């Protein structure tokens, strides 16, 4: 034992571990609630991403000819590839979720208030860094979803006034989507942003060590100056009941939160594995691309906002969010950190969280998407199917009415559900309507394409469905 003890002493001395231990680990901090473990959780996720990512780079081939197949190979053939890539994928999603959680949590407890403005501003950069990683990562898969994700981002850049087209060429690496596009995303995802994230995360943690985190007493009483804050924090940290030692007590509590999130990541990986799309990148197939689930809110927003406002929204949202986040500590300067005393900022955070969830739900439904369909609409149970109605129903599918209209809840929801629509047109009126819809209704005119008899049959079918629905109510 004496030998171990002397080796330990030697290491501590020669590698200078004593000062690190005293400054970083063996220090008194204020006790904080369980949800303050979100920061440690994010750090753990960052480490998972660095580890799994570094090892995947040993197989991944950043060339458009090989990228997709190399991802397929490492997922399906290489030992435990499904696990390593699966954990990388699910941790990426969890990291985006956690970075939002962490940010809103800090806003709710007034964590950006003096003397922690610097910690917050570094955090804002980390927030945008994580969002960038969450996007550039799935481009590297170089599947269909990836190329269209790139196209979407390029179209977003294209909407920037004056320099839009130049930005497109800069990100795309030229005038056409190609090899340089992939290598640029590779460089950004694997070198540029990870280095930045690692450096900034280290600095963020240094500032957390220096200034501490918002303690319970700071939230209970007004604090007017940074000096007063330091005194209050110090008193808690040193006290027997309100303070604790960072290592191991605080770390154990934070680790609990982190373990729950790690558990979620592992569970998702074991249950669902690493998603492997069928088809590699191509610009020729009929495709229904979708962003990854952690960006559904963004897609929902683009679809819901009126079309004329979309370009401005796309350009302004990142700029305005950055501006708002950076200015928060300079606007919300009052002495109170408790939520009841800061209704405006707390309200803003809660509304934003609600919006993100609402938009995500909308994207899952995507009621705005019209698409060719083979779905044959149902007939009401008590309507007998005459040859005319059967033919009307066939024409309904043949002419793509079902690309937009549901019948009794079956089918797409772009136009009104024809069994549930309120207006009751006569056969003649309906025929006219389908033949030549009013100017302001986004529906194709069928007069040129359907014969008078076909119009009659389709209109007859729709009326039968409506009558049937009416009787059933």
């Amino acid at each position, binding site marked *: 034992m004496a030998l171990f003890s002397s080796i330990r002493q030697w290491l501590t001395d020669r590698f200078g571990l004593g000062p690190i231990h005293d400054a970083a680990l063996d220090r008194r901090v204020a006790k904080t609630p369980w949800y303050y473990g979100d920061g440690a959780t994010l750090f753990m996720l960052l480490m998972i991403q660095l580890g799994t990512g570094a090892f995947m780079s040993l197989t991944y081939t950043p060339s458009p000819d090989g990228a997709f197949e190399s991802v397929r190979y490492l997922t399906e053939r290489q030992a435990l590839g499904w696990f390593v890539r699966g954990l990388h994928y699910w941790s990426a999603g969890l990291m985006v979720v956690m970075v939002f959680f962490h940010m809103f949590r800090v806003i709710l407890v007034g964590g950006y208030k003096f003397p922690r403005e610097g910690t917050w501003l570094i955090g804002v950069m980390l927030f945008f860094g994580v969002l960038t990683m969450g996007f550039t990562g799935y481009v590297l898969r170089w599947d269909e979803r990836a190329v269209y994700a790139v196209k979407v981002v390029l179209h977003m850049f294209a909407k920037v006034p004056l320099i839009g087209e130049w930005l497109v060429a800069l990100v795309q690496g030229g*005038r056409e989507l*190609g090899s340089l596009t992939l290598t640029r995303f590779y460089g950004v995802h694997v070198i540029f942003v990870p280095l930045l994230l690692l450096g900034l995360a280290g600095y963020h943690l240094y500032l957390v060590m220096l200034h501490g985190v918002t303690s319970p007493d700071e939230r209970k009483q007004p604090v007017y100056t940074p000096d007063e804050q330091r005194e209050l924090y110090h008193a808690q940290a040193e006290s027997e009941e309100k303070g604790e030692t960072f290592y191991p007590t605080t770390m154990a509590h934070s680790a609990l939160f982190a373990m729950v999130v790690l558990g979620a990541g592992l569970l998702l990986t074991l249950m669902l594995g690493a998603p492997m799309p069928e088809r590699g990148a191509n610009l020729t197939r009929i495709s229904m691309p979708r962003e990854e689930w952690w960006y559904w809110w963004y*897609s929902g927003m683009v679809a819901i906002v009126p079309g004329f406002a979309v370009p401005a929204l796309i350009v302004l949202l990142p700029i305005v969010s950055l501006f708002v986040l950076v200015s928060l500590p300079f606007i919300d300067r009052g002495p109170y950190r408790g939520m009841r005393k800061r209704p405006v900022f707390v309200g803003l955070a809660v509304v934003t969280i609600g919006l993100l969830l609402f938009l995500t739900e909308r994207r899952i439904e995507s009621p705005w998407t019209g698409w060719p369909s083979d779905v044959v609409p149902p007939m009401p149970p008590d309507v007998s199917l005459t040859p005319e109605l059967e033919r009307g129903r066939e024409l309904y599918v043949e002419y793509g009415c079902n690309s937009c209209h549901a019948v009794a809840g079956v089918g797409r929801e772009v136009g009104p559900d024809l069994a549930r629509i309120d207006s009751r047109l006569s056969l003649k009126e309906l025929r006219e309507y389908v033949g030549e819809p009013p100017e302001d209704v986004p529906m194709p005119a069928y007069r040129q394409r359907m014969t008078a008899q076909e119009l009659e049959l389709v209109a007859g079918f729709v009326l039968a469905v409506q009558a049937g629905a009416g009787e059933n109510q």
Partner: protein
Amino acid sequence: MKRRDLMKLIVQGMGAVTAGAVGIPALIFGVAPAFEKKQARWRPVGPLDGFPPGSLRMATVALPREDWAETPAEKGVFVWRPNEEDVIVYSRSCTDLGCPVHFDEGSDWFFCPCHGGIFDKEGAPVAGPPRVPLYRYAWRLREGILEIDLSSIPPMA
């Protein structure tokens, strides 16, 4: 100026010079592809006879190749020949955010799979976020072969 202050200035200056000497060339190197000159790039779509009057169908066009990689090798476009004389070649990119539109033969309209963009056969936006009509390629005929200029639409489309 004190000797000590001068030393500080020199140290800072050396740092700035080093950063500039390495950083500026690296930056120029990084942004160079964005300054690629715009020039016409005509590519064949196929014999015009393959697109009978009245038809609207998808066709593929070979993309220019880099020296070191070949994919994506081709790109889908829509060729519509409303009558004997006219040809319209649409890009598949939705003009809102670039998702690939799909032509629905039943309704004769184009549907975007992402945010509800819908275009009529003429390419005009009729629903959803798009405000701009579908992009049309410049086209020409060379010995019966339909050719389009890839540079005639925006670079991301």
